[in-house]
């Protein structure tokens, strides 16, 4: 491959792609502004975004009554009145948008934490987000009285607030306890283990002591579900995603440097501690927003960055690709959950059932390629 051996060249004429540099990266320069991009990453990212958009339209079209995709698109741009327009914009669109956004932010958050901890098992869970949110939500369900169904409590606004508070408190506790004149990834991971274990035990205690009907409701929340979404769950999520995802994309270059290890990164001129705090804060905010909206949707933040990494062939998960794949996974899983089963299966179960075999298949195939 010439891409691997070609020496880096200086930029050619403005606006034209520079010849292939190391590691398949290409550069483009417009006057003083330069950008490096990889054809393979870009191709997969565009494909994933297109697939996500198709799934959004399909997700709105499929339901107890079928709505033709043409009508769906007309309703989405606001040109469709009547009952079908109502079904699209008020009933189905919030759910589909929530699914897409949850997938997006979980994918990005997972890519951030796996990169910054340099550990494929380092999902946002290790900063205590999921455990904290679970304690908050389960406490709200169990102590809030046994007569509520999950959807009623969710709609009243109690559980999202409790979950967000729990997630943020736990994350601050993990970061604060991991601080000793700076935060090392390794110590942070260990502190995260300890804090998460304690919080999970509290959740278990609440579950074991609760009445069985309440425990069922709490268990339903704990696998993650999109069944009780409305526009009020979309807006906070949308605001968080619109603010945090661009910042995350802007840190991308620093993420690559941070992977070299603290000493090298400091030597190259990266403010390691500030960078790490920023990345972790982004991951916490993103995943807390997702958990508040849909509960801890299983497995997305773990599997999606790993899949993105293997598809793109890079040394860390590309953020935008991870986000787009996350949206695809959650949207596809929700579509499957609504249409393939006689009763509505929580989306968190389906994301795992779909995502886990795919990762396993990638692992097996990858190893065959390596041994050839």
């Amino acid at each position, binding site marked *: 491959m010439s891409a691997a051996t070609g020496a880096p060249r200086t930029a050619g004429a403005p606006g034209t792609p520079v010849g292939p540099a190391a590691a398949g990266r290409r550069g483009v320069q417009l006057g003083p502004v330069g950008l490096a991009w990889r054809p393979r990453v870009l191709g997969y990212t565009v494909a994933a975004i297109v697939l996500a958009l198709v799934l959004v339209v399909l997700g709105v079209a499929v339901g107890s009554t079928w709505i033709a995709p043409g009508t769906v698109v007309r309703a989405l741009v606001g040109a469709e009145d009547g009952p079908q327009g109502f079904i699209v914009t008020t009933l189905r669109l919030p759910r589909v948008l929530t699914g897409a956004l949850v997938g997006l932010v979980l994918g990005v958050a997972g890519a951030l934490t796996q990169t910054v901890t340099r*550990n*494929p*098992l*380092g999902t946002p869970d*290790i900063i205590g987000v999921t455990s904290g949110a679970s304690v908050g939500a389960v406490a709200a369900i169990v102590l809030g009285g046994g007569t509520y169904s999950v959807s009623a409590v969710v709609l009243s606004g109690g559980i999202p607030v409790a979950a967000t508070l729990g997630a943020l408190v736990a994350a601050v506790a993990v970061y604060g*306890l*991991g601080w*000793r004149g700076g935060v090392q990834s*390794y*110590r942070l*991971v*260990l*502190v995260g*283990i*300890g*804090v*998460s*274990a*304690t*919080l*999970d*035990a*509290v959740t*278990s*205690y609440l*579950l*074991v002591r609760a009445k*069985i*009907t309440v*425990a*069922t409701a709490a*268990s*339903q929340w704990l*696998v993650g579900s999109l069944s009780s979404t409305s526009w009020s769950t979309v807006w906070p999520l949308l605001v968080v995603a619109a603010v945090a995802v661009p910042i995350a994309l802007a840190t991308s270059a620093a993420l690559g440097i941070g992977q070299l290890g603290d000493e090298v990164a400091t030597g190259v001129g990266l403010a390691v501690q500030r960078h790490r705090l920023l990345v972790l804060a982004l991951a916490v905010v993103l995943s807390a927003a997702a958990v508040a909206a849909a509960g801890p949707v*299983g*497995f997305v933040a*773990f*599997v999606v960055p*790993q899949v993105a990494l293997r598809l793109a062939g890079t040394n860390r998960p590309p953020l935008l690709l991870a986000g787009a794949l996350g949206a695809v996974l959650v949207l596809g899983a929700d579509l499957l959950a609504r249409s393939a089963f006689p009763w509505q*299966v*929580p989306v*968190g*179960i*389906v994301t*795992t*059932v779909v*995502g*886990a*075999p795919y*990762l*396993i298949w990638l*692992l*097996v*195939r*990858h*190893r*065959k390629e*390596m*041994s050839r």
Partner: protein
Amino acid sequence: MRQGYPKLVRVPSPETVLTPARAARTAPAGARSAHRAATRRRLLVVLVLVVALVAASVASMLFGSNRLGVDQVLAGLTRTGSSTAEAVVWGSRVPRTLIGATVGAALGIAGLLMQGHTRNPLADPGLFGVSSGAGLAVVLGVSVFGVTSTGATVWFALAGAVVASVVVFSVTVAGSGTASPVPLALAGAAVSALLGAITSFIVLTDQDSLDAYRLWVVGTLAARQLDVLAAAAPFLLVGAVLAVWNVRALDALGLGAELAKGLGEDVLVARLVGLGGITLLAAGATAAAGPIGFVGLTVPHVARALVGTGHRWALPVSALVGAALVLVADVVGRLVGGFSEVEVGIVLAVLGGPVFVAVARRRSLVSL
């Protein structure tokens, strides 16, 4: 073509290879005394832990919801006292103490091996699907076969654990015939999540299963007789033998697979022995007391902080810390809850979590 190659690599004669013992003999006096001091310190750690384990066992025999004096417990133990004391001691306290110590030691060793092989501080013995496989089997036992007694649940848990970990090994070895750590951890996490999702699916549709599962999954030593231990014992014994056999190879693997190969270890054999040991130990322990993830996750870190990364010391220390920890947590759970005791898995994590955080903050941690 020439026949044979010139001998460019000089093979060291056995006398010049530096074994630890020879290094200690030939080292300068200062290093030798430092080595001896380190050994003394480690022996002291082991001694303190043995004393702690004995104390925890005694406490486990003495305390419980039935208030028995020391003399009554002794009389019950020798079957000379009242029938109540005898029933409490032999029906509850002896099994709990034995199962608790065994389970704790097994999980401690399994966790150490797991983190040594995957070189990942987040790896717990359940990572290869042991806990989730056992959990799914238990739930299936309840929902399909209507099994509820602990004596029968053990067999379901054992079968599920073994099947799940065989699946994980097959997935990772499927490609190239090696079992290298990162794909193994990923495959394990994927299979575990898949089995967990199926468990959730069943549990959410069937309240009886949820009721059984939520009690099983926290991990408890209550209501277990010695037949549970007898069922798990063969697994635990073989697992322990494999673990001890794996110690030298693990130390070599800690230097990286290439160096280990250079030192004469067969990496694949070492991995398979280690993974077999982990599976058997974790399966036996999980079947006996439910998935107590916290022990396998944290005890190895404590052991390494106490005696360093060498597995010759870290292995027995992990076993001792694990056993003492589970017993202490069980006693505390019996005391704080009154008649409705708190399950040992919950106590372990609630009390052990903060302690572990403190250890992670204080000690200059030995990273993997």
